[in-house]
């Protein structure tokens, strides 16, 4: 690798770039830039979802990767939207709490119904994150053991202590009960 070779490469120019963000099966095209409505490179996915796309179901609490409140799915995996740059999220399918309902029928995901049935929340602020982490778990492992459920939720803070009811709610919809 020679020095000239490296220096001759182009530096990025902001403002020319478009990002195609796929959220809940919808495509949003965002222009990279610093103006209003544009995608600043420093915007996190959580910020874009909430402030630009209006998908406020995703909650931000710590904004530092510690609480799981902002959990969304990236290609079926649970990730923290506060620790991802939107500009790096193009091309991957993102699912938020708003995307769990059946798009056509509007029916709730069984997990959502189970959360209601078990009152698996108190203030409800952690709940979207809890549900998204649970969803990722059940997609990867439809019949988790109780320990696996707890482990999958171990990155999700709940100050009210709804975890006992959350675990019950997840168990109730998992293939292997109990």
């Amino acid at each position, binding site marked *: *690798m020679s020095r000239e070779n*490296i220096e001759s490469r182009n530096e*990025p120019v902001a403002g020319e770039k478009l990002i195609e963000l796929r959220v809940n099966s919808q495509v949003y095209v965002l222009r990279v830039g610093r103006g209003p409505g544009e995608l600043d490179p420093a915007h996190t996915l959580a910020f874009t979802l909430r402030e630009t796309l209006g998908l406020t179901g995703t909650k931000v609490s710590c904004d530092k990767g510690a609480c799981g409140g902002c959990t969304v799915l990236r290609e079926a995996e*649970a*990730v*923290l939207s506060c*620790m991802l*740059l939107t*500009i790096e999220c193009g091309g991957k399918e993102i699912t938020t709490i708003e995307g769990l309902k059946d798009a056509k029928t509007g029916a709730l995901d069984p997990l959502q119904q189970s959360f209601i049935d078990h009152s698996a929340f108190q203030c409800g602020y952690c709940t979207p994150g809890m549900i998204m982490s649970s969803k990722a778990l059940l997609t990867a492992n439809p019949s988790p053991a109780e320990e696996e459920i707890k482990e999958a939720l*171990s990155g999700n803070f709940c100050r009210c202590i709804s975890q006992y009811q959350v675990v019950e709610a997840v168990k109730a919809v998992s293939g292997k009960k109990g």
Partner: protein
Amino acid sequence: MKTFDHYDAHSLDEALGLLANRCGKARINAGGTDLLGLLKDGVLPRYPELIVNIKTIPGLGYIEEDGERLRIGALARLCELAGSKLLRERYAVLCEAAGAVAGPQIRNVATVGGNLCQDVRCWYYRYPAHLGGTMECARKGRGPCFAIKGDNRYHAILGGRKCFAVCPSDLAVAFAALGGQMTIVSPRGERKIAVGDFYSPLGNGLADDEIVKEIDVAKAFGPGRQRFLKFTVRKPIDFAIVSVAAVTEEKNGVFANARIAIGGVAPGPFRAEKAEEKLIGKKPSEALAAEAAEAAVEGARPLSKNGWKIEVAKALITRVIGS
């Protein structure tokens, strides 16, 4: 977070070029789970002008064994390490260390390279800008190390100098026990450095224009017995107060090989060579384990509030070796 320019690099060369061009004002983003926290808190003395995404570089996410070496690409994710069958069978400490990092969501994006290069968690160093301003400390090139006179309950008991922050990386400890080495690339070419030698009290051994490409582990001896133990205040979402990775091999009822690394106690993973020496040629027993543990922490020099970490380290080493 303050704004920056952003570029998706599509090859290592391209990424290196961008780093070199910005003379220290560009920063690599891998999983971002450490970097974004630093940027949001405004902690870095030099806020980057450019963020170079390296996740767009193809072919850096491998975990494979070829002949005599295990090779892991810098972009392999921690969830992949934790779930790897190969690692579980032959490099269990790596698997366990990766699985002990943070929580599931972070492991889904965090990378091996990022884990090894992450910044320290010292609470003085990390004090956020918007809560009255950051704290100018030795690590930032200005001021004292606040930990010396302050609350140093989690700081280094070994090897601190000027700065007493400990290396927060769990993988570094496992790699150190396995004798892993990093391949680092720069415009000047490639170099290799043992993971155990990568860290110093004031930072890691990475120049502004360097990128970690790969970590490899030589099959020095068979998988033997491998164990990783991590002591934290709570299990997930927590950095090690002390962690221990041990790789031992027994032949004819005695220890033939032993490599022990301790995390959370020093600026880097601390190879407990004195403890290793104690073990070689001896029959495993509780008493021997305890003796090795004493030897491991022999040179420890605690600060005002962290002497208890010595006891924790001893207990962990005894357990790792003994049981």
